[in-house]
C-alpha cells in the first residue's frame, strides 16, 4: 500500500510543468536566434577542433565520392538547424566526428602514417607488470571460456551504449544524456587520435608473426574470436576484423575505455550498485586479454583515458543527483558539476544562507539544494493531503523554484550552452 502511494506521488510529480521539455518544433529560426545571442568563449574552440577533424576526414575519404560527402554534410547541417533534430545531433556531434574519423583511417596514405611499433607494448608489459599477462591468460582455451569471453566483448560491448543512453535519459537528472554523449565522443575521439599517432600491434600479431616489423598491408585478425566463428559456423568476426579500418590500434584499448566510462556513469546514477559495474569492467578486461586483442598496458591506457574524461565531465558539467528523486521528470532544477579548480569550488560555498539567495547564486549553493529538496518533499507529501478542519486551504506550499520555471530561456542561453537541452 505504501509502495502504491509512493508511486502515485511520483507520477503526480511528473505532471508538473518543467523547463526540461523535449523540442518538437521544425522551425529553424530559433536556432539562428540562439546563434546570434551566443557569447563566445574559449570553450568554443572545441568546435574548431571538431571541424578540423571533419575536414581532414572529408579530404582523405575516397568512398563515397564528392556528392556523397556533400549530401552527408547537407544532412548534418539541416539536422543541426531544426530544433527537433538539433536536440539529438548537437550533443552527438563528437560521436559523429569520431565515427567519420575512424572510418577515414582506412584511406590514409601509408606515407602519412608513422611506423608501427611491435616490441614496445610487450616490453612495457613485461617490465611494468612482470610478465606478458595476455599471453599467459590466453594459453589455456576452452569453449566455455570462449563463450564467457564473447558475451561482454562481442555482444554487450556494442549494445551497452544504447541501453545506457536510455537509462540515463529516464533515471538521471535532465542534462545527463548530453554530457554522456559528449564524454563518450571525446574519449573515443582522443583514443582514435592516439591510435593514429602511436600505432602498436596487438597480441594476435605477436602470435601470428612473432616480433617481426609490421606494415600497413597486414589485415586484421579476429584473434580468439575465430573460435567463436568456428563454434557457431559463422564468419562475422573474421570478416569484421579483416576489414577493420584501424588494424594496429592496440593502445589505448577502447573496449576497456567504454566499459570503464559506462561503469562510472552508472555508478554516478546508481551509487549503490557500483561494485557490480566495476566487476563488469574486470570481466571485460579479462576477455580482451583472453581473446588476444589487447595487452594489459592497453587496458590501463583505455581505463585511464575514460577516467580523465569522466572526471572532467563530472567536475565541469555533469548534473548532480538530488536526494529522493529517481525519474527525470521529478527534477525542478539542476545543479551542474562540482567545480574543477580551487576558485570554482570555493565560490560554490560562498553564499552561506539559503534564505539570502539571489537568483544567480541560487542553483550553486549546496544549502539551497537541501532546502529545495525539503520543499519538494513537502510538496510531494501534500499531494495526498486530505481536507481537514485544521487546514485552511488544500493548495500546496509556495515554491521559490516557480520563478525559475517562468524564466525565458531564449534570452539567457545560447546554442553552444547545453543547459537548455533535455
Amino acid at each position, binding site marked *: 500500500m505504501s509502495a502504491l502511494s509512493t508511486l502515485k506521488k511520483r507520477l503526480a510529480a511528473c505532471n508538473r510543468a518543467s523547463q526540461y521539455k523535449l523540442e518538437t518544433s521544425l522551425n529553424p529560426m530559433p536556432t539562428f536566434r540562439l546563434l546570434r545571442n551566443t557569447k563566445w568563449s574559449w570553450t568554443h574552440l572545441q568546435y574548431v577542433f571538431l571541424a578540423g577533424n571533419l575536414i581532414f576526414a572529408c579530404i582523405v575519404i575516397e568512398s563515397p565520392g564528392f556528392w556523397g560527402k556533400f549530401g552527408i554534410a547537407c544532412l548534418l547541417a539541416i539536422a543541426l538547424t531544426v530544433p527537433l533534430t538539433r536536440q539529438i545531433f548537437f550533443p552527438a556531434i563528437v560521436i559523429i566526428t569520431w565515427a567519420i574519423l575512424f572510418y577515414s583511417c582506412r584511406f590514409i596514405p601509408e606515407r602519412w602514417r608513422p611506423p608501427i611499433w611491435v*616490441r614496445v607494448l610487450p*616490453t612495457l608489459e613485461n617490465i611494468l607488470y612482470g*610478465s606478458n599477462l595476455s599471453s599467459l*591468460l590466453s594459453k589455456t582455451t576452452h569453449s566455455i571460456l570462449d563463450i564467457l569471453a564473447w558475451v561482454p566483448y562481442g555482444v554487450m560491448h556494442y549494445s551497452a551504449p544504447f541501453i545506457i543512453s536510455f537509462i540515463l535519459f529516464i533515471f538521471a537528472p535532465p542534462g545527463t544524456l548530453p554530457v554522456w554523449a559528449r564524454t563518450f565522443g571525446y574519449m573515443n575521439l582522443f583514443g582514435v587520435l592516439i591510435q593514429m599517432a602511436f600505432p602498436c600491434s596487438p597480441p594476435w600479431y605477436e602470435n601470428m608473426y612473432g616480433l617481426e616489423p609490421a606494415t600497413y598491408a597486414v589485415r586484421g585478425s579476429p584473434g580468439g574470436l575465430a573460435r567463436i566463428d568456428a563454434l557457431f559456423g559463422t564468419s562475422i568476426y573474421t570478416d569484421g576484423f579483416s576489414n577493420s579500418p584501424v588494424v594496429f590500434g592496440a593502445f589505448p584499448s577502447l573496449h576497456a575505455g567504454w566499459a570503464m566510462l559506462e561503469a562510472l556513469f552508472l555508478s554516478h546514477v546508481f551509487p549503490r550498485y557500483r561494485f557490480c559495474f566495476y566487476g563488469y569492467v574486470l570481466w571485460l*578486461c*579479462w576477455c580482451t586479454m583472453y581473446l588476444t586483442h589487447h595487452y*594489459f598496458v592497453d587496458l590501463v591506457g583505455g581505463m*585511464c583515458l575514460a577516467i580523465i574524461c569522466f572526471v572532467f565531465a563530472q567536475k565541469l558539467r555533469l548534473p548532480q543527483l538530488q536526494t529522493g528523486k529517481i525519474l527525470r521528470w521529478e527534477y525542478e532544477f539542476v545543479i551542474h558539476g562540482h567545480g574543477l579548480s580551487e576558485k570554482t569550488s570555493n565560490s560554490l560555498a560562498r553564499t552561506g544562507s539559503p534564505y539570502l539567495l539571489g537568483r544567480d547564486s541560487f542553483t550553486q549553493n549546496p544549502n539551497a539544494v537541501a532546502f529545495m529538496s525539503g520543499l519538494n518533499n513537502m510538496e510531494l507529501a501534500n499531494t495526498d493531503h486530505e481536507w481537514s478542519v485544521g487546514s485552511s486551504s488544500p493548495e500546496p506550499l509556495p515554491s521559490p523554484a516557480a520563478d525559475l520555471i517562468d524564466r525565458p530561456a531564449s534570452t539567457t542561453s545560447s546554442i553552444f550552452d547545453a543547459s537548455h537541452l533535455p
Partner: protein
Amino acid sequence: MALFRRPNWSALFEKIFIQKSFLGFCSLRVGCEIIIWFAIINKVSGLYGIVSLFQNSDASPWQVLMYVSSVLMLILFSWLAIHIPKSSVPHALILFYVYLIDFLLNVLFTVLFALSWFSKLVQSDSSSTEESADSDPSPSLLYLFFQAESIPSLLLLIFFASLKFYFVLITLSYSNKLIVDSGIRPQNLPPNFSGRVTRLLMKPYIMAANRSYLRNHTKRFTDSIELEQRLMDEVV
C-alpha cells in the same frame, strides 16, 4: 644586504616541492581523485597476475611478490578512494605515505624486471644472429639494444616514473594543504587509535613546518589579546 641572508631551507623546500594545483588548473582534491583511480587501475594487474600464476609454472619469486603486493595495495587504495573525496585529513596522510611506498616499490620492481628483460632480449638476439651468420663477427651489444625498439620503451618508462613522482608531490601537497586549512594540531587530537595514528603521521609535517608555525604564532597570540581586551571591556 640580501646577498648575506641565510638560506631559508624550509621555505625553499616548500616552494619547490609543494604544488598549488594539479597541472595548473585543477584543484588538488581533483588531482588526488584521479591519482587514486590511476593507482587502482594499475594494481588490477595483481588480480590477473595471480590468475596467470596457475598457467605459468616458471614464475620468479619477484613476480609473485609483485602480484601479492599489488593485490594488497589494490585493497588499500580502494578503501582510500571512498574517503578522499570527503577531504579527510587522516586519509590524505595515509594516501601520501602509501603512495610513496608504492612508488619506491614500483621503481625497484621496474628496474629489476627491466634488467632481466633487456638481458634476456640481448642474449636471444645475439644467439639468433650468430646462428644466421657464422662467418661475420658478432655485432655489438649497443646495436642489438637499439634494434629491439628499446629507445621508445625506455622513454615511456622514464615518462611514467616521472609522472608517478609528480603524483607523489601532489599527494604530499594535498595532505599538507588539508592540515594547514583544517587547523588540526597534535595536542587537539583525541587519544584513541585514529588520533594516535594521525599524530604519528603528522610528525614529519610538524618538524618540517616548525619555523612557519613559529612565524605565525604571533598573529594568533595577537588575536587572543584582542579577544581578552574585548571581554574585559564588556565586563567593565
